């Protein structure tokens, strides 16, 4: 029992389990932020990288986790759970998954605490990193934005899985035996997303008047009901409350990164001296790449704005581009540009000042691209007023080429081309707030016309099997051959007469 475990081992084990629990919560919440995570490897160990893994600590998340634990440790009958749920902009919410860190009674007395248990906990954290990208909630969280947000809630005690609906699946991340019990990490996730499929991509009438910071409350705000979760986004602390979560690490919490190759009796290696909380010394975090297309496609541009009163263009509007509101860039950005950095506040301010303008610029750049698929009623436009990337290649000097069937095919489609027509319509939207919001129809390039909607596959197949060219069919070709041969002497006579013209032409070319 516990008497067999030395006091030092017991103390170490408790510390390992406590920090394992905190790191587990960090990994899970960071995996649901909606951003790709990137941390650097470092060959020199620092005292703050528990389990030798570069996992950053978001102070708010640590604060929530510690609040839930309330000084206790996960133990037998006392599980730590992280519940991930989804909340739509209409206020509906649904639990997606519950991650459980449990302890059972099965003990492994012979295992070495400060070496084997520590390393196995490290492997378990790596497994957690891998598995958090595999469950269905990951894809949902990557697409969170103005339609829905992902929330997390940490609780301690009995595991509650009733909110996951029927037929939920369980995946076990791993187990680590310790002298006081076996640590088990698992995830139960919802499979029945019926509520989602009805509502997820419905484009009903635009939602008016939702304030951007509706979903963001300060973490310790009393407005949020106890059973509602925290949003899975990271807002860098303001300068005023920058000190609030600074001291997350207790003074005695040092991460033991020293190991011994000596026999078990000499397991306790020299401990590293205490290092200040990981605000300055931790491994640097790479910023997620802010790809304008990625940002805007997933609609992470900070919530819904007043939508101009434009009827949606057809039933199948898929792509909506929205304008980034003038809020602090980090409020809804799910850790996008402000990132998960814990570095000094000076750096954070720089990034914050950069982030609102970048999305707007990239939005403008992106709007032009999106406009390629806008369907607008055709109006006659001269080429000069078309703002086209390929306007330079449009046929000019129409007078001389009026009769050329190559330039003016017998049946011209309503738009000059889908590309030109759509870009024109983008240009005619007008300036002002309407610039910011474009409802588009998703139509593949080269699709014929409205009357005959054709998918790309069908088009490709038809293109693969074009009808035989008339001039290549046998009987016609043989006839034309004979005609050609007959007319040859006449043609030669004509050419000989005009030989001077041909010579002049050849000289011109040279």
């Amino acid at each position: 029992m516990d008497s067999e475990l030395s006091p030092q081992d017991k103390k170490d084990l408790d510390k390992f389990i406590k920090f394992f629990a905190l790191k587990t919560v960090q990994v899970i919440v960071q995996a649901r932020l909606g951003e790709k995570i990137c941390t650097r490897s470092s060959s020199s160990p620092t005292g703050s990288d528990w389990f030798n893994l570069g996992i950053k600590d978001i102070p708010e998340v640590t604060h929530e986790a510690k609040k839930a634990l309330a000084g206790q440790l996960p133990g037998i009958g006392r599980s730590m759970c992280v519940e991930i749920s989804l909340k739509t902009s209409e206020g509906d919410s649904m639990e997606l998954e519950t991650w459980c860190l449990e302890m059972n009674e099965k003990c492994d007395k012979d295992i070495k605490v400060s070496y084997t248990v520590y390393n196995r906990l490290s492997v378990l954290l790596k497994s957690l990193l891998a598995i958090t990208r595999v469950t269905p909630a990951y894809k949902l969280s990557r697409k969170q934005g103005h339609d829905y947000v992902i929330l997390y809630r940490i609780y301690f005690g009995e595991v509650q899985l009733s909110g996951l609906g029927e037929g939920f699946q369980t995946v076990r991340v791993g187990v680590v035996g310790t002298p006081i019990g076996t640590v088990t990490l698992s995830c139960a996730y919802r499979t029945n997303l019926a509520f989602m499929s009805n509502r997820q991509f419905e484009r009903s009438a635009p939602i008016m008047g939702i304030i951007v910071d509706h979903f963001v409350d300060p973490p310790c705000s009393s407005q949020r009901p106890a059973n509602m979760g925290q949003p899975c986004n990271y807002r860098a602390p303001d300068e005023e409350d920058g000190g609030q979560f600074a001291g997350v690490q207790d003074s005695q919490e040092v991460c033991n990164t020293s190991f011994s190759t000596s026999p078990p009796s000499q397991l306790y290696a020299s401990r590293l001296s205490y290092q200040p909380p990981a605000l300055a010394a931790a491994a640097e975090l790479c910023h997620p790449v802010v790809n304008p297309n990625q940002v805007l496609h997933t609609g992470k541009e900070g919530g819904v704005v007043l939508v101009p009163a434009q009827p949606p263009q057809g039933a199948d509007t898929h792509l909506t581009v929205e304008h980034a509101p003038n809020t602090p860039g980090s409020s809804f950005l799910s850790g996008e540009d402000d990132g998960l950095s814990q570095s000094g506040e000076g750096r954070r301010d720089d990034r914050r000042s950069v982030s609102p303008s970048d999305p707007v610029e990239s939005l403008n750049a992106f709007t032009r691209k999106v406009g390629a698929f806008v369907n607008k009623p055709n109006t006659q436009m001269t080429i000069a007023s078309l703002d086209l990337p390929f306007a330079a290649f449009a046929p000019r000097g129409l007078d001389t080429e009026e009769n050329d069937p190559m330039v003016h095919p017998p049946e011209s489609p309503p738009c000059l081309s889908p590309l030109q027509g759509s870009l024109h319509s983008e240009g005619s939207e007008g300036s002002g707030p309407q610039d910011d919001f474009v409802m588009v129809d998703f139509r593949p390039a080269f699709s014929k016309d409205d009357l005959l909607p054709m998918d790309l596959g069908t088009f490709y197949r038809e293109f693969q099997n074009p009808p035989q060219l008339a001039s290549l069919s046998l009987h016609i070709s043989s006839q034309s051959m004979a005609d050609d041969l007959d007319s040859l002497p006449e043609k030669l006579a004509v050419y000989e007469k005009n030989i001077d013209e041909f010579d002049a032409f050849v000289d011109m070319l040279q």
Partner: protein
Amino acid sequence: MNCRSEVLEVTVEARQVEEAMLALLHTILLHRSTGKFHYKKEGTYSIGTVGTLDIDCDFIDFTFVRVSSEELDRMIRKAVSEFKEALSNSGSDGIGQISLEFYQKKKSRWPFSDECIPWEVWSIKVNVVNLANEQERQICREKVGEKLGEKVINVVEVINRHEYLPKMPTQSEVDNVFDTSLKDVQPYLYKITYQITDCLGTSVSTTMRRLIKDTLAL
């Protein structure tokens, strides 16, 4: 000591081969890499930090986590693209297998060279299919993503059984257990090999073996 052997099988389109292999190999290596060891006196050592990186696949609806080490990534990519080329050169019906083997070196006396003793082998069998149209490709994207997710869960399950791992070595022995050539992380010693099966179901190596045997029998 028996070598632990695990087989994973995936069916993918030709353009998905590279990403599927990278996803699985990196997932395994994530678990089989530690930070750099720094030995100090008194027989103790400290371990560096392993960073991680999320990678989105372009041709598969899948994201995997790899170790944050460009050197390691380059080496794995090189091996995977050799495998991919061999697979595509073998013909469209080709089935291939890429193996990631973790081994320990055992020093032998001169003139014998060091022995490489594998302790864990992961074999990934790949079936390449050709799809006819865009709709099938879209379905394949999602399906392969789900399959890879299942494979990751399999990998994690095996690794978390915490079966045999080489003992942590002393400073003099560290190169027999770990690959210390990288500057930021330290994976266990590993090697990647592959073999391609042609459409007749016989592998090139078995054909060669048969030829040699026949020649010697004469």
